[in-house]
């Protein structure tokens, strides 16, 4: 009888479990520990405009996950407006529409953005250069001269962009002043870059600073060289993206478009807060990939259900360890796990006290039932009703006495408790109170240990976020099922045999 297939299976489970777990950690940035804090920016955009009195339509470009930032959740507030989200050429828009609007209008959009150094944008193709760029005289000569000067002092599109911006900063030339009378700075720079055959587009960015209100988007130049793209500040000419810059609606020509209104503007306020990593993870929008096999793609209600279900293997592992490695006797193999689950709802102390109370009172009543000479099923059913009565009584008593913790006693699994009482009662009659204490104590000890394991925030975080752990647990339990060595308590039991 070869054990190779067995160890193969265990190895396979271990490998798959570790791989899945690492994948979750690396690809989705799920942290190992629940206490890790992540920075989350809450940015609110406020759109104001005066409606003309007829139908109005507002389109606002939205931020997407980009280098350094991951978009978590977004909310809108806009009374009376119909809202839809559009995705056009890689740019997301929120579109509000209304049949009839008059006077000052105010629309809100807020987004939670996670600071995530590993986040990457989906690469956008460089814009197509409209050639030739049309200039009216005398601006064409001015443009040509500025381009020629910058071109001579540069080596590639990026240095060229830098030199170009420099022409417009300090010691402005006559040409520069002339051009600026006709065009705004960012648009002008894009035109000049395009004229020189450099792909570029204007993008909007928001500088994130904690607690700022009424902020506005600043224009930036995105300069392309083949596949590479860098941001250039149109005022200072500095290259590269500042860390606190959140690109807003990158790639769209205008951030805000309003039809049927005037004096439209958008302003931003933002706050930063630190959230436990687990919360940040939960708020991540589920990405629709097959490999993202995660409980988090389920609706919230099912998620919280799974949070408990995924803990049960931990309880089972505790039971296996205590029975196979230690040799503790329990009444009913997995009854302690169910009691431990109840402890999670009731808190430990209330749970233990409640359990002891219910079982003790149940045993007293059960001892009377045994005089009635009933059939087994009827007797256990009677015990179930008794347990319900005890639990109701204790709940009411606890409430009257102002002990609200006592109300949680209703979380105990009543059928399981009834069977426990029945089994203990028989044990008492046949083997005496000593054995009841041993098995009852063993069950309670196992339940408390299982509770401590299952209630550990670290364990809860890991089991819920890393589904691969279940495979590792499976491998562990299979391995333990193969253990032929002594149990801890056997070392004491067989001690006389070691002395000979």
């Amino acid at each position, binding site marked *: 009888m070869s054990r190779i297939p067995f160890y193969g299976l265990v190895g396979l489970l271990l490998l798959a479990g570790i791989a899945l777990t690492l994948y979750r950690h690396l690809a989705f940035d799920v942290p190992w520990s629940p206490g890790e804090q992540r920075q989350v920016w809450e940015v609110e955009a406020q759109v104001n405009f005066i409606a003309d009195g007829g139908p109005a339509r507002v389109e606002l470009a939205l931020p997407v996950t980009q280098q350094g930032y991951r978009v978590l959740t977004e909310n809108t507030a806009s009374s009376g407006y119909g809202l839809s989200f559009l995705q056009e050429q890689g740019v997301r828009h929120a579109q509000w529409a209304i049949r009839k609007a008059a006077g000052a209008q105010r629309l809100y959009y807020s987004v939670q953005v996670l600071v995530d150094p590993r986040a990457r944008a989906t690469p956008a193709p460089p814009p197509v250069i409209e050639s030739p760029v049309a200039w009216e005289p005398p601006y064409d000569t001015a443009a040509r001269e500025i381009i020629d000067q910058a071109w001579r002092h540069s080596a590639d599109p990026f240095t060229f962009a830098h030199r170009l911006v420099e022409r417009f900063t300090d010691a402005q030339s006559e040409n520069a002043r002339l051009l600026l009378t006709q065009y705004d700075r960012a648009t002008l720079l894009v035109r000049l870059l395009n004229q020189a055959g450099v792909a570029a587009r204007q993008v909007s960015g928001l500088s994130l600073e904690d607690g700022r209100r009424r902020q506005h988007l600043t224009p930036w130049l995105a300069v392309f060289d083949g596949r590479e793209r860098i941001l250039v500040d149109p005022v200072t000419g500095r290259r590269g993206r500042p860390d606190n810059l959140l690109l807003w609606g990158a790639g769209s020509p205008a951030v805000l478009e309003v039809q049927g209104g005037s004096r439209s503007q958008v302003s931003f306020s933002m706050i930063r807060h630190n959230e436990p990593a687990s919360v940040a993870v939960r708020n991540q929008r589920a990405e629709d990939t097959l490999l993202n096999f995660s409980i988090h793609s389920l609706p919230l209600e099912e998620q919280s259900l799974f949070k408990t279900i995924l803990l049960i293997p931990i309880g089972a592992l505790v039971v296996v360890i205590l029975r196979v490695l230690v040799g503790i006797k329990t009444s009913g193999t997995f009854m302690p796990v169910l009691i431990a689950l109840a402890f999670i709802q009731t808190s430990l102390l209330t749970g233990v006290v409640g359990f002891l109370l219910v079982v003790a009172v149940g045993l007293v009543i059960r001892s009377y039932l045994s005089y009635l000479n009933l059939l*087994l099923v009827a007797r256990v059913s009677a015990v179930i009703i008794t347990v319900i009565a005890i639990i109701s009584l204790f709940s009411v008593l606890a409430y009257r006495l102002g002990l609200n913790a006592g109300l949680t006693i209703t979380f105990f699994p009543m059928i399981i408790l009834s069977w426990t009482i029945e089994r203990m009662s028989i044990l008492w009659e046949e083997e005496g109170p000593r054995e009841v204490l041993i098995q009852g104590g063993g069950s309670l000890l196992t339940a408390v240990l299982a509770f401590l394991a299952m209630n550990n925030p670290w364990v809860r975080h890991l089991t819920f976020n890393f589904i691969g752990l279940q495979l590792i647990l499976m491998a562990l339990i299979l391995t333990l099922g193969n253990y032929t060595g*002594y*149990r801890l308590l*056997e070392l004491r039991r067989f001690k*006389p*045999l*070691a002395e000979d």
Partner: protein
Amino acid sequence: MWAPPSRLRASGVIGMNRRNIRYIGRYNDRRHYPLVDDKLKTKLLAQQHGITTPALIGTVTSQFEVKQVAALVAAQAGFVIKPAKGSGGKGILVIEHQDGDGYVKPSGHRLRREDLERHVSNILSGLYSLGGSPDVAVIESLIAFDETLARYTYEGVPDIRVIVFRGYPVMAMMRLSTAASDGKANLHQGAVGVGLDMASGHALRGVQHDRPRHDHPDTGHPLAGLRVSHWDTLLHLAASCYEMTALGYLGTDMVLDRDHGPMLLELNARPGLAIQMANGEGLRRRLDTVERQATGMSVAQRVAFARRHFARHGELQDAGGRLAREEADA
């Protein structure tokens, strides 16, 4: 307080996990379990194989028949009611004799007819069976145990447990009920276990609650003089249970009847490990010896092998003699 595992391994002690995986899991085919888990089936099978068992008075299979229990046992002086699928001696009711007022247990405790019926009813509804499944009550005649054993027991019938491995009897012990065990022959309830020499059936050493014992706690009789009669027959009986059940790792429980000699009481597919304590020796070496033997031996050959290879000298009879020998060796 704790023994180092290496020492236990060196003495060949087998733990629960090893018993479950290495012996029960490997040698006991699960489909044969019903034969031993159901005492009625065991009994009928034993009769087919010519193995003596206590006489069957009758069975009760439905609640409807419960009222007829009294009539069923009317002609018997003493009898035993047990659940067919009970385990660990649970639900076994021994009635030593009956009179007009009721039924008397070995303890002198008196039961009324209703008590008897309730007990049978409990058995039928599965109170004592594994998993609470419906059961059958088996009524057997009481064993008239050998008078020579009366000095070694309190209220109950002493029984003999022999571990049979692949048909070879490997280790044996006698279980003596005590006041602490409430007349039951269960070691964990406080019965005294006495290890037996495989060659002769002589007592080797006694334990109670896993600690050494030299006399019976209630009768005070020294255990050294204990010797099981009809030893060879008893071993033959035990060994032939292998052919009967096809279970490789088997616990056979037997009693000595005054008139009928050794009788098979019940079989156990998951025999406990306390027999190691009673013998003061681990099972491992003997099981390894048997595993090295070829299959296809006859019952008589296997018994002879066991008596020759597993013979041991007792610690009880001549503690002094052994000391003298050890001194001579030194």
